[in-house]
């Protein structure tokens, strides 16, 4: 079982940020009265409440709502708020960009014509008014390619993250809750976790034909492991608490216990893992593309654009071809990373007041 002590860096990182937020929250809420104010609190400022038989019978009621408090706590975090707005703006823009007027086709090669009408492709033109991000070394418009690439990469990331989420949660809860499956799943996990994840990624992409579907399959094969392990560890911790024991004694079916009693506890872990899966997918995509196992050339992706930029990075006048996609991909990954951590903190009920 020693494996489970290993923990993942990302989880640690999450807690790391969580620590900070705890201390920040504590600072913000310190609204103690100063000695002078306490001095000023004379008895005549307080009025005794009259006894009311009806009020005395009233049952305590709180309008606490888990999700509202989660969003409130999240909204308090200024950096996360700004990043979230920026990220949503970026997402909306990538979706609507092709429908805006004056946009170019990412796969069209633009030519200049000399006086005999002979076409020369506009290669490596620096950013200008016509081509906002310049053109690449074939003559494509980089602006159009960047947004098309962001679309592809984010689509890939969302698909992989949601598959990981579904598979990870299902396997994790079964693994933690059904004792008979524990030994088997632990063995499967050990075997898969023993192999460096890049090796699995490369091997899968190598065996199947390179492309979007292959990438999804190979990233999903390695992706669910982390989520399943976190969920399993949480479930093992809480499955035998008294309230679950009570539910079981009252004859609640196992399925209902899993969904109603266990799952709400796991929201913060799930959110964190899902949000962190996205930077991971983007990183893997850049890496796989470098190995020659990425998307086909006519389907731009951020990984592909970084790789294209890498080829020309040694001539300073063409560096924009690397810098622009690199900035976009870094912005997306870092934002998801920070937002994921902030949301995980916010969804922890201990941070709700």
């Amino acid at each position, binding site marked *: 079982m020693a494996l489970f*002590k290993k923990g993942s860096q990302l989880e*640690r990182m999450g807690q790391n940020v969580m620590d900070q937020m705890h201390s920040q929250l504590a600072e913000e809420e310190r609204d103690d009265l100063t000695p002078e104010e306490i001095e000023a609190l004379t008895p005549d400022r307080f009025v005794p409440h009259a006894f009311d038989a009806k009020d005395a019978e009233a049952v305590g009621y709180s309008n606490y709502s888990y999700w509202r408090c989660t969003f409130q706590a999240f909204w308090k975090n200024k950096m996360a708020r700004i990043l979230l707005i920026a990220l949503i703006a970026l997402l909306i823009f990538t979706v609507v960009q092709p429908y805006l007027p004056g946009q170019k086709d990412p796969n069209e090669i633009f030519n200049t014509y000399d006086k005999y009408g002979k076409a020369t492709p506009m290669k490596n033109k620096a950013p200008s008014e016509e081509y906002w991000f310049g053109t690449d070394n074939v003559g494509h418009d980089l602006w159009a390619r960047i947004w098309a690439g962001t679309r592809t990469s984010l689509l890939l990331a969302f698909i992989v993250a949601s598959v990981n989420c579904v598979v990870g949660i299902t396997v994790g809860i079964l693994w933690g809750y059904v004792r008979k499956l524990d030994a088997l799943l632990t063995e499967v996990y050990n075997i898969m976790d023993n192999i*460096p994840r890049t090796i699995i990624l*490369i*091997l899968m992409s190598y065996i199947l034909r390179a492309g979007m579907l292959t990438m999804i399959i190979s990233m999903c094969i390695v992706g669910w492991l982390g989520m399943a392990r976190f969920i399993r560890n949480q479930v093992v911790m809480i499955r035998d608490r008294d309230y679950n024991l009570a539910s079981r004694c009252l004859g609640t079916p196992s399925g209902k216990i899993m969904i109603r009693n266990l799952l709400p506890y796991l929201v913060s872990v799930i959110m964190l893992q899902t949000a962190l899966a996205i930077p991971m997918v*983007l990183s893997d995509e850049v890496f796989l593309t*470098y190995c020659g196992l990425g998307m086909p050339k006519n389907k731009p992706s951020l990984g592909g654009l970084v790789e294209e930029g890498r080829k020309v990075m040694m001539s300073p006048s063409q560096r924009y071809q690397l810098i622009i996609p690199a900035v976009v991909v870094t912005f997306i990954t*870092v934002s998801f990373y*920070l937002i994921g951590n902030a949301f995980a903190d916010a969804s922890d009920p201990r941070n709700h007041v």
Partner: protein
Amino acid sequence: MLKYVLRRFCSAVFSLFIIVTVMFCLLRMMPLEGYLGPNVDKMSPEVIAAKLAAKGLDKPVHVQLAKFYKDLLFHGDLGRSWIFLENVPVVDIIEPKIGVSLKMGGISMLVALTIGMPMGIAMARSKGKWADKLGTAFIIFIQAAPSAVYFLFIQMYFTGLFKLPMLYDSEKPVTWILPIVCLSLPSIASYGMWMRRYMVDQMNQDYVKLAKAKGVPERKIMTSHIFRNAVVPMVQTIPGSLLLTIMGSLYVESIFSVPGMGGLLINVIQRQDNTMVQALVLIFASMGIIGLFLGDLMMVIVDPRISLNRGEASR
């Protein structure tokens, strides 16, 4: 102790067996051009059959698998390269490369440990102050941004800025600097982060409060109480990382053209040399497994409280 070691050893061997077998079968399921190159359409069926037979691929999978294991276990033979260096035994190709990867990886690991651990300790000691925040920002960036991207920027700007040569040359140690910087950056971040985390965990424990209440000097609490406890979980990862340096970093070695194991894997994948891929994956997977095994053993040696019995491993 012996029983525990034996049990862990058996399970490690079992994992290895499954990995190798599954991988072997998967590699046999590739489309034909995976074996014979892109010109397969132009070959006649007889040529294809002859080529497959020459590589021993015409037999059923389980016969091939048995032969592979027989060669491996009795002769230490991993087969011969198909394309990379045709018909040269894989072992001969790999041998000189392991040294290079080990050297670069070893140096960068030393660098990472000597920078990362003190960084984590310093961050934990100044928790919540600017030094801690700066360190956290650094760690977040290194962890979140794709390494494939910032390595390129290091390569692009550092070569100009410090007049450092871009590509690796085994004769000139000055060319080693950039690959080592790239190799150690992620490890610095991860060592720093773990160290900080474990130190902070330990600081909140009751025994630290007791030591403070007794009047033990702050410095002594840090070194002989907190550090000793915080370093235990770190120890577990060290043998694994050391062994994994043998496989080198796929990406770093490749972009700086370091002639090591990692670059080799990418190279043979791009050239579709199946025996090489198979041998390298076998080696990498076994490194991972042996590293984990040694890490667990180290833990047991370093921390006398860890119990070897399965029932008590409930933490």
